[in-house]
Structures are given as structure tokens and as C-alpha cells.
């Protein structure tokens, strides 16, 4: 991913297939402005109750419940009963709001994940409380207080503290992922030899997000996988 414009194109195309994400802009007259935002409302058992644009969750989401997709490893899947039912959300004081931002880093030229979790009254959760709810913590036995790749940083646009999944390994990771899938493509279909790494670059954001999401408690909806496989 070499430019912000490319990130933006891929982000807008991602929203077409995964409409819980929003494209947010803050500035006027700036070409290179905007980032992806996803808000998930989770209860104490870490079940996702509803997301940013709950009204747009489609019915076929319910199929996730009998899922054979091991990508969605959050304890429970979208609870259809709670869709559009904001009253029940308001009454529940144990609701935690997970706010995920995906911002393009010009330094590393990759998307970067930022996360903040807060309660209904806007009080921010402590890192140890957040860390324990992230599926990633089950894979990392190191002390929850110091995880060098996930640290509190200043949000590059809002200027307030957010937790950042550090991007320094992302370029290498994605280089490997995209070259592996190139080989697979080559094996499957010899006619498709023009499937170069450059062509695969268009899947950069969705590939990266499909790796990162399960680690930080984002369910990948079935309709998005369908959307991607139809592309």
C-alpha cells in the first residue's frame, strides 16, 4: 500500500461489503484525510450486542450463529435480538463500547489499528481490563501490563490517548501474506499469470483486517466474506 489514496479507495470498497465500518473525516480542504471507524457495544460476557450501524445489519447475519468460520473467535456472535434495540443497551450499565480506528500511517505506508474502550458514561477502561477481553491475550502469556506491540499513544488526528497495535511489523507481514497468496493463485490458475503482487495490493486492507480483527475482538461478518469471494 503506497499511498493514502489507495488506502481510502480500499477502505470505501471495504465498507461496501462490511457496512459496520464508517469513513470518518475531520478536516476540510485536505486531500489526505479520513480513517475507518467501527464501534462495537459489548456486554460483560464480551458478546457483541450491536455495532455502529446496527440498523444496517442484514438478516443473513444470523447464519453466523451456526458458523463453520473459525475466524470469528469472539465468544459469541451477533445477537439478533438486540439489533435496533437501543433501549436495552442504555439500561445496561455493563455495556462497554469498543471503538476501533484504522488509520493510514504515512511513515510505514500501512493501515494501523487503534483501539479505545469506554463505558456508557465515557470513562475509559484501564489497559489491563481491555487486554483481558482481547482474544490476543490468550495467545500472549507475557505480562498484560507491558505488551510492547500494543501501547497507549496519542491518536494522530484526535490527539487523545488511544491504544495502538504497533505497525512496525505490518509491512513485512503483508509482504509475506501477499506473496504467498500470489503463489497459490499461480498454482490454481496458470492462465492468470498477470496476477502480480501489484494486483494483490488491492486486497491489502481486507487481508490485513482479516488477520488482525480476530485478535482484537472484531467479528468478521459472513456477508463480508461472501462479498470478498464474489469479487
Amino acid at each position: 500500500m503506497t499511498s493514502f489514496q489507495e488506502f481510502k479507495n480500499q477502505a470505501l470498497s471495504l465498507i461496501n461489503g462490511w457496512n459496520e465500518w464508517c469513513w470518518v473525516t475531520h478536516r476540510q480542504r485536505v486531500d489526505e484525510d479520513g480513517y475507518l471507524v467501527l464501534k462495537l457495544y459489548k456486554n460483560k460476557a464480551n458478546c457483541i450486542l450491536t455495532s455502529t450501524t446496527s440498523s444496517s445489519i442484514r438478516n443473513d447475519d444470523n447464519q453466523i450463529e451456526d458458523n463453520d468460520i473459525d475466524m470469528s473467535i469472539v465468544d459469541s456472535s451477533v445477537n439478533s435480538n438486540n439489533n435496533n434495540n437501543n433501549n436495552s443497551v442504555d439500561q445496561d450499565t455493563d455495556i462497554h463500547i469498543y471503538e476501533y480506528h484504522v488509520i493510514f500511517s504515512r511513515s510505514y505506508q500501512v493501515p494501523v489499528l487503534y483501539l479505545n474502550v469506554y463505558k456508557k458514561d465515557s470513562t475509559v477502561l484501564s489497559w489491563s481490563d481491555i487486554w483481558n477481553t482481547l482474544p490476543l491475550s490468550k495467545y500472549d502469556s507475557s505480562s498484560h501490563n507491558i505488551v510492547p506491540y500494543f501501547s497507549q499513544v496519542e491518536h494522530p488526528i484526535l490527539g487523545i490517548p488511544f491504544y495502538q497495535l504497533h505497525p512496525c511489523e505490518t509491512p513485512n507481514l503483508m509482504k509475506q501474506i501477499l506473496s504467498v497468496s500470489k503463489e497459490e493463485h499461480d498454482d490454481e490458475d496458470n492462465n492468470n499469470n498477470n496476477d502480480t503482487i501489484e494486483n494483490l495490493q488491492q486486497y491489502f486492507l481486507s487481508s490485513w483486517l482479516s488477520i488482525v480483527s480476530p485478535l482484537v475482538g472484531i467479528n468478521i461478518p459472513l456477508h463480508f466474506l461472501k462479498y470478498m469471494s464474489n469479487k
Partner: protein
Amino acid sequence: MSILNSLISIVSLNSQKHSIAYSSASFSNGDNFGLNHVSKLNKQTNTQTHNGPTITEMSFFDEEIKKSIWDGKIPIIFTLSPNDLTSHIPPSPYSLMAPRNSYFPLITNVVKEHFKSSTLVLADEMWLEYNGVPIKWHIPIGVLYDSLVGGNNKTSEDDPNQGYWNLVVHFQSYPDKILKCPNEEYIKTHYKNVLKEANYIKQGDITKLNNLNINQTNELWDGLKYHDYDKFWSINKKFYPNSTKEYKYIPIRIIYNCKPPVQELIPVFDENGEETTLQMLFNFIPFQNVENILGNSNSSSNSNSNNNDDNDDNNNNNVSKSDQVKEIDSKFKTLFDYLNSGVKYKIQGIEPDLSSSVVWLNEFFGYPDNFLYIVLLDPISK
């Protein structure tokens, strides 16, 4: 060396009084020893474009300059917040010379010890405040000072505190707008991450950093923590390419009022093979990229960026899935146009000449995190 050294501390101490005398003009026709060499070296870097002078070629005076920048210090007076005072006798203020190239949590343990006996409220971490603004510890001290005080130390001539930076010490109500710093590991992690970023910009990978062994990593950290020039630079020099040709981009940050930095990828040479100067850098950055962090812009960005503590649904107000209509009525095209309207900039407390090479400045005027911080000063409050 001592002259440049004192120049830096004089400018830091009393910038308003001296800023005119020691601004860019003195860099090109300075009548003192240290400054002459800065301007000569800059000329040298400008003329030898493609083969770019290697660091070893210009070592003698440069080493002095590097050391002088490292030795730059700011006199600070710390006072306990009246809200936190629980003893009968208020404690005396605590003063120290704070290195520009350091972070507050690395040097304020003595301050904490000094005030500890005068307050019972030690529930939270200690934090600092200047004129009602909580200090962001993750920004290097010199950048904080240039940005918050700049050329505008408002104390009057007969104020006994004149020239000092007055900071208020707090032990409660840690502001949620600044990063937490419960222990040294947090500073270390932050420092390493920024250092990685700078080096990724410089060379496109961070193998040099990852290849450090544990002793070297500790040496670098101890050098920063104890402000030990020889220790720090024995490792830090590894992060600077031997030749300007090895650079991909120069890591720079434009800072205004301690807001999130504006970062641009600055090439070492322009399309004509000329080594990038400060002026070229300012011309390279579109004004609109900087406009949003300036307080006096007319755009709606002010209200948006200031209200973010109320997280709930704030972002949704700004959602737009379609492209915004672009207005092209800005007065300034580039950052250089903006600076030409009388806005000052500061790098390590001084205003280097516009003809200075940026890659040179990055190495010699850079901060320990390897970024070159260019602080814009608010024209309104001056």
C-alpha cells in the same frame, strides 16, 4: 562550542529578548566562532550535492555542535499545586536545569521526592501543568518548551522568575487527555516506537535497531535516561547513514501548540539533485496540511478536534461517505507562504537559516528519537 552552547541556553532562557539578534541573520553572518562554522558547513552541504559529504568528512566542528545541542538545557521552577497542598507550610519551589533532549518522567523523580512530604494526595501519578495546559510527557522537553513558551516568555523585566519556565506539579486528577506513565517501561516503549518510526522513514526498515544486542539497547537507554552524551551517541550514531544517498526520507515533525505532529516524507534531494534545504521543505508542505493544527483556521476542524473527550457519537457527526467539496480559497499555498507572513519557527530553541540542509539538521539538531522537530510559533499571541 561554548558560545553556541550559551547561545542555545540564552535563547531558551530569554527568547523574546534575544530572538531578533540571534535569528537566521546571525547564522549567515554571525560574528562569533561557533555560528560561522554552522553556516560554512551548511554551504558545504549545499554545494556537494550528489556525493553528499559523509559524516566523517565534517566531523570536527559538527561534533561540537552536536554536543552543544545535547547540552541545551532549560531552567525550570516547579511549584506544588495549591489544590494538592496538605501541609501547614507550603514547600519551597524546586528548580532544576532540564535537558532539552529528554522526557519529563526521566528527570522529575527528584521533584516528586521534594513535594511528597507536603501532600497527602498521592493517589495518582504526578503530572505537570503550564498556564492551565497539562504537559504531554511523551513530547521531548525542548519541543514542549519551544511550543508552549516559544519566543514568548511573558514574564516582565523585574520579575525575579524571569527566564524560568514555571510549571505546576499535580498529584491528583490525572488528565485523561494525556498518556499514562506509571513507570519507566512506558517511557521506554514510547521512545523505542518513535525511534523505530524515524528509522523506518530514514531507511525503509528497522533492522539496524532490531540488530542491537541487549547491551547496546541498554547503553542507548541509559544514555538517554542519565543524559550521558558519549553513551547515547555511541549507539545512536549507528542509526545515521554514512552517506546522504542511503537515506530514503528525512524524519521530520511539524509541531504547533503540542498538537499531534504533522509528518511529511521529505526526500533528501529534490528532482534537480539539490540537497533539500529548510526553505525547500517549507515549500514542499502544502499549507492545508498544516492549517488544521493551527488554532486560527476558519475551518470547522477546531470544534471537532477540541471536543473529543466526549467520545460518544462525536465521530458520527463527522461521518461523510462521499468526498468533501474542496474549497480552494486558502491565502497560502505552502507552509513557506505562511511563514513569510511573519510566523516564526524554532528548532532546538533557535531559528536556523532557511538555507540549512535538512538532512544535516536532522542529525545535528534532531532529538533522541531521531526526528527533527520544527515548532511553529503562534503569531497571534506574540
